[in-house]
């Protein structure tokens, strides 16, 4: 047993750090570190930068143009990127549809779609949830009817993150309404630019436009865009959910946010002293830091088990629950740290280079919006209550 990183892993960390120092644009870096709005162009540019360096697919095997890194190297890479203030890579292509196409797609699909994910040319979004199907995903109603060599798709998807920028959407659609819910679902790739696709924004509690409704009205989809077999989509969806959850602990990003919290709490004053020296506040910061230390080890234990088993297990649910609790606690403490200056709320202050009148310290502007935004974390990706169902059934065998 050894909780340290090997010399080779340390050298790899140094290599990543050096690359980030040279390649990450300063303006993007400060946006991420200050919690400001990161544009889609920033995200795409960063994907292209990584791709040029051969690191476009940090979690992909070599045969599909990925780095072939083991789970520990992927972890180190994510941790260093988060610490340096790199934009979060879009998970929809890299961590969701990509692995599904690699595992279940045919050669033509692999050649057509995978390189464009790596190069940042295609922006993907995820078409799972529907107005009537949230956690109960298998009840989805969006219909795809086979007509010769095409499917005709009708229905409505919702909570589609960043669909307003997307070129493609991977959808769960019902292809057989006559059987039990899980058995009649297929996994279909749909061109967002096709006639009949409409995107409508949903404005969230932080007044941001992050998610959308996507409507399909008689959208014609070539049958070649079906992944795997018809009516086997539920199997592929479960495979994907496992991959999505492995990385949801977000340890690297939470470490970065913890550093930001301490920076803010060291500058804020209470009774004339730094807030970080206030015993009550310091104890709450300490509690989150300790929880995060424990989560990091738990995450590494899961990675080690995963490296042996080759597939993410139900332990990923534990990481999701604890990881999102920590993310939410951090956003809450940061908001609380600035006290009344968390109240002034102006969306435009979330843009880098905001030149309006600052109310309170500059770092206060995004904190309440981030707090509101982070409430989503315990809801998306299978709500934390669903994760507890999974833990109790798959781990505890109840």
């Amino acid at each position, binding site marked *: 047993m050894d*909780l340290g990183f090997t010399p080779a892993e340390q050298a790899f960390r140094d290599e990543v750090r050096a690359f980030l120092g040279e390649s990450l644009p300063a303006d993007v870096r400060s946006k991420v570190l200050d919690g400001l709005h990161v544009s889609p162009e920033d995200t795409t540019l960063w994907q292209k930068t990584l791709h040029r360096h051969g690191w476009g697919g940090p979690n992909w095997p070599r045969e599909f143009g990925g780095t072939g890194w083991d789970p520990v190297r992927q972890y180190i890479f994510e941790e260093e990127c988060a610490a340096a203030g790199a934009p979060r890579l879009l998970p929809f292509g890299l961590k969701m549809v990509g692995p599904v196409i690699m595992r279940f797609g045919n050669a033509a699909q692999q050649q057509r779609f995978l390189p464009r994910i790596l190069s940042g040319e295609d922006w993907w979004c995820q078409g799972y949830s529907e107005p009537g199907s949230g956690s109960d995903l298998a009840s989805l109603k969006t219909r795809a009817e086979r007509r010769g060599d095409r499917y005709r798709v009708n229905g409505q998807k919702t909570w589609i993150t960043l669909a307003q920028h997307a070129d493609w959407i991977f959808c769960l659609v019902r292809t057989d309404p006559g059987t039990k819910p899980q058995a009649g679902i297929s996994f279909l790739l749909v061109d967002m630019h096709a006639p009949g696709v409409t995107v409508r924004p949903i404005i969230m509690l932080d007044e941001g436009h992050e998610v959308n409704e996507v409507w399909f009205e008689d959208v014609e989809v070539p049958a070649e865009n079906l992944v795997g077999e018809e009516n086997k989509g539920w199997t592929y969806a479960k495979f994907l959910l496992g991959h999505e959850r492995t990385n949801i602990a977000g340890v690297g990003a939470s470490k970065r946010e913890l550093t930001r919290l301490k*920076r803010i709490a060291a500058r804020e004053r209470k009774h004339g002293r730094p807030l*970080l020296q206030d015993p009550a506040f310091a104890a709450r910061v*300490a509690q989150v830091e300790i929880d995060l*230390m424990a989560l990091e080890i738990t995450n590494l234990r899961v990675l080690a088990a995963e490296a042996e088993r080759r597939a993410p297990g139900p332990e990923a649910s534990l990481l999701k629950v604890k990881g999102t609790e920590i993310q939410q606690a951090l956003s809450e403490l940061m908001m609380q740290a600035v006290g009344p200056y968390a109240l002034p709320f102006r969306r435009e202050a979330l843009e880098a280079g905001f030149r309006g009148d600052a109310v309170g310290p500059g770092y206060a502007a995004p904190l309440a919006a981030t707090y509101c935004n982070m409430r989503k974390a315990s809801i998306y990706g299978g709500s934390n209550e669903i*994760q*507890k169902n999974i833990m109790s059934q798959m781990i*505890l065998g109840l």
Partner: protein
Amino acid sequence: MDFSLTAEQQLLSDTVQRFLSQHYAFEARRRIVRSPEGWSREIWGQLAEMGLLGLQIPEAHGGMAPAAVETLLTMTAFGRSLVVEPFLSSAILGTALLAGLGSPAQQEELFPAMAAGERIAVPAHGEEGARYDLERVETRAARRGEGWVLEGRKAVVPHAPAADLLLVSARTSGAADDAAGISLFLVPRGAPGVSLAAYPTLDGQRAADVALRGVALPSDALLGPEGGAHGALSAAWDLGVAALCAEATGALQAILDATIDYTQTRKQFGQPLAKFQVLQHRMADMLVHVEQARSMSTLAAMRAADPDPAVRRRAVSAAKVTVGQACRFVGQQAVQLHGGMGVTDELPVSHLFKRLAAIELSMGDTEHHLELFARSLSQGTDAA
């Protein structure tokens, strides 16, 4: 990054677990706890035969120290079976103090006897009013001729009634809460002037308050430099807290397993309790606590002997907080989910519950370690 065990470590873990399942099942343990001494010399001898009493004795003296992983595995197994023998007090804290402070002569005399299970040496450090502060020592030692005289009281000394030797901390200089000026003395439990008020503790173990009235000691009773015991005490305590965390992990897993079994067996409203979602989610929450505690007890074990006190103290305090909170939550919920049976003396659950409560209160409770950790926060950041 490697969480795997060597073949030898796996063998040790299997051997200890097999031994305990054969000789330390619930009823056997109950007999031991209810015996006059409250622990078993026979079991103690068998632990010695397995080499476990030498885990923290340096290799040069025939032991296995540092043996971080072996200690982690042993303590986890002990936690699962609720072992009451003075292992933590003597085979971890006692040997660690002797290793840190003892002269070659003292070590040569005591290590073999301790490894063989023939001598038990436990620290007598805590005092009334000191709570968990390691440096608050009011017991005093004064020079008399060539030797020393001890005067003072030690409070709630674990396993003192079982000990042949008490490792008594006493102030030879400085104010009551100075780290400097604390010395450690080897005191035979039966020495004139030493009196014990012995009692059982909440968890079925034994402890005593120790009065020291004019205890006269020879010069070679001093362990380590005069006034310089604090560093070794602190290092031993870090090892001890890590061991306690490992023990808790075993007890936590046992009480979670017992709760799962019970809720799958007990039926109400025509179905097993385990089918009710409100209870499933409670057990999922318990699982999260247990796994986080396991992670932190592993971290503490691997850092507890780190030469940098700041590194080891940070890991150890964080671990004790995580484990302490798990002890409370998992222990309380296990009793709750056992319903009426949970509050009886009949099932292991209540015995595990009491040990978990005792662990939370031992060697610094959750609040104590959270405060230590919180105080270190502003040291690394610019407070200006």
